[in-house]
C-alpha cells in the first residue's frame, strides 16, 4: 500500500494556538514530520509607530505586546529610557516596581498553567488559574484603573503612590496563595494524565537551548542557570533573596512545572519587598518632554516569557531614532518545529503550551 505525508493547517483561528498563530503540520499518520509556524497575523508595526512618537508615548504600546505581563513590559521600556537619560528612580518607586512586576509574573504563570491544562483537555484547571489571577488583576485595578493595560510604571518612577490599604490587600493575597498553589498541585500537577502527557515529551538539551537563544523557563527547564534578575540585576533585584528553579530534562513537564516553582519564588520576593518598602516620593523630577542625549542603550529584563530587551537609539530629538524590542516569545517559538518532530499531533498542542507564546508579543 502506498502511503504519503499530508499537510494539515492548525490555525490561524484555533482554540489551542493562544491567539492567531498558524502552524502548517506535515504529518505521517499521526506523527509530525515538520511543523512550520506562520506568524505576523497580529503585526501592528509597533516599532515603526514608536519611532514616530515621543519616548513616553511608547509605554502604552508595550502593554499591548505581551498583554499577560504589562507591568514587566512597562518596567523594561521605562528602565531602558532611564538608562539612556541617566535618571535616578526614588527608592519607594523601585519597591513598588518590584512588587507589581512580580505580581504580574504570578498572574502570567497562573494563565500559562491553567491554559496548558485546558489544552490537554482539563477545563477545570483553566478555571482555577483564571479565578486566582483575577485577584491580582483586581489589585492592579485598584492601583491604576486597568486590569491588563496598565501604563502604571512611568519614566522616573510610577504614576502614583499605592492607594490606602493596598499593601494589606497584597499581604492578604500572599496569605491565600499557598492554598491556590495547593489546588494546582493536587488538581493539575498531581494529575496522572497530565504527567503522562508531558513527561519525556519534546526534550531540549542545554546546548541546543543556548544555541537557539531560548530564554525564560524554556531555557532554564534545560538546566541552564540564566535569569536576568540574577545574571544582570536591574532595578533593586540584587537586594532580594530568591532562587532560580532549574529543570533537568528540558521536556514539556520541566517547562511546565518550572512556572509553578517560579510563582513560589516571586511570592518570596513580594514578601520581602512589602517588608522593606520605605516612605517617600514615587516619582523623580523628569522634564515634560524627554530629549535623551545622543546615544544608544540595550536594556533587558526577565519577563514571565523570558529575556525581554529594548534597544533604543537617540539622535537627541524628542523621538527615538530606533526603537526595537527583543521579544522572548518570538525567539522561543522558533523551537516549535524541532521539538514537535516525531511527536503526535496532540503533543504539538502541549509543546506550544509550554513554549507559551503570546502572539501580541511574537508579532509585535
Amino acid at each position, binding site marked *: 500500500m502506498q502511503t504519503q505525508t499530508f499537510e494539515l493547517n492548525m490555525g490561524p483561528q484555533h482554540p489551542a494556538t493562544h491567539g492567531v498563530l498558524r502552524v502548517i503540520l506535515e504529518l505521517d499518520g499521526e506523527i509530525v514530520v515538520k511543523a512550520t509556524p506562520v*506568524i*505576523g497575523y497580529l503585526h501592528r508595526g509597533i516599532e*515603526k509607530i514608536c519611532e514616530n512618537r515621543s519616548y513616553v508615548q511608547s509605554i502604552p504600546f508595550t502593554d499591548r505586546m505581551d498583554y499577560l505581563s504589562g507591568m514587566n513590559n512597562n518596567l523594561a521600556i521605562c528602565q531602558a529610557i532611564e538608562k539612556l537619560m541617566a535618571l535616578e528612580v526614588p527608592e519607594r518607586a523601585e519597591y513598588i516596581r518590584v512588587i507589581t512586576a512580580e505580581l504580574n509574573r504570578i498572574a502570567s504563570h497562573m494563565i500559562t498553567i491553567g491554559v496548558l491544562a485546558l489544552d490537554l483537555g482539563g477545563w477545570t484547571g483553566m478555571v482555577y488559574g483564571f479565578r486566582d489571577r483575577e485577584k491580582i488583576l483586581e489589585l492592579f485595578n485598584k492601583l491604576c484603573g486597568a486590569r491588563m493595560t496598565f501604563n502604571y510604571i512611568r519614566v522616573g518612577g510610577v504614576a502614583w503612590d499605592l492607594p490606602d490599604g493596598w499593601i494589606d490587600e497584597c499581604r492578604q493575597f500572599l496569605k491565600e496563595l499557598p492554598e491556590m498553589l495547593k489546588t494546582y498541585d493536587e488538581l493539575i500537577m498531581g494529575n496522572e494524565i497530565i504527567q503522562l502527557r508531558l513527561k519525556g515529551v519534546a526534550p531540549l538539551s542545554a546546548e541546543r537551548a543556548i544555541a537557539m537563544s531560548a530564554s525564560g523557563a524554556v531555557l532554564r527547564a534545560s538546566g541552564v542557570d540564566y535569569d536576568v534578575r540574577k545574571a544582570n540585576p536591574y532595578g533593586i533585584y540584587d537586594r532580594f533573596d530568591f532562587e532560580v528553579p532549574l529543570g533537568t530534562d528540558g521536556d514539556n513537564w520541566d517547562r511546565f512545572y518550572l512556572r509553578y516553582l517560579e510563582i513560589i519564588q516571586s511570592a518570596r520576593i513580594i514578601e520581602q519587598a512589602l517588608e522593606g518598602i520605605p516612605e517617600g516620593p514615587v516619582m523623580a523630577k523628569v522634564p515634560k518632554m524627554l530629549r535623551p542625549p545622543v*546615544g*544608544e542603550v540595550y536594556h533587558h529584563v526577565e519577563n514571565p516569557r523570558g529575556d525581554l530587551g529594548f534597544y533604543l537609539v537617540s539622535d537627541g530629538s524628542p523621538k527615538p531614532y530606533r526603537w526595537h524590542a527583543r521579544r522572548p516569545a518570538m*525567539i522561543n517559538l*522558533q523551537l516549535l518545529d524541532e521539538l514537535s518532530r516525531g511527536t503526535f499531533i496532540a503533543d504539538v498542542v502541549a509543546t506550544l503550551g509550554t513554549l507559551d507564546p503570546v502572539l501580541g508579543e511574537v508579532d509585535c
Partner: protein
Amino acid sequence: MSMSLLEKITTDDLLASLGQDVQLLGEGANLSVVVPKERLIAVMEELLKNYSFDYLGDVTAVDRGESGFEVVYHLFSISNKYELRVKTITTQSEAEVPTVTSVWPGANWMEREVYDLMGVAFAGHPDMTRLLLPEEFEGHPLRKTFKLQPRA
C-alpha cells in the same frame, strides 16, 4: 551587574585577538565593536570560542541614511556573565551582510525579521524570506524612507 567584556580585559588585548580592521566606538553604554562585514563571521567565531559568547541576545538593524545600515548584535556569555555589542555596516545599495546562523542557529528568525522590516539581507541564510509581513508586501517599513500614512 553583569558587565561589558571590556571591564575585564583591555581594549588592546581584545583588538589584538580580533584581528585587523576591527574598531571600538563609543564608551559606557554606547560602546560597540565595529567589524567590517567581510570579517564578521571570523570575529564572531573568535568571540564564541575564546570569549565564550555563547548566547546571541538580539539582532537588529538601524537605518543611518546616507551612511548605510548598521546591523547590531547583542552578545552575552552565560558562563562568564558579560556582554558585548557588535556592529557591522553595509551600504544602502548593497544592504547585505553574512548570516551568523552558522555560529548561533537562533539567529534564524531574528535575521528574517531584520530582512522583512529593514530590507537588509543575510547572505547564506537557510530561509531568507519575510517573517511577519505577507510575501506580496512592497517595501521595508522600518526604513526611514518608508513614511507612515497620515491618519484618515
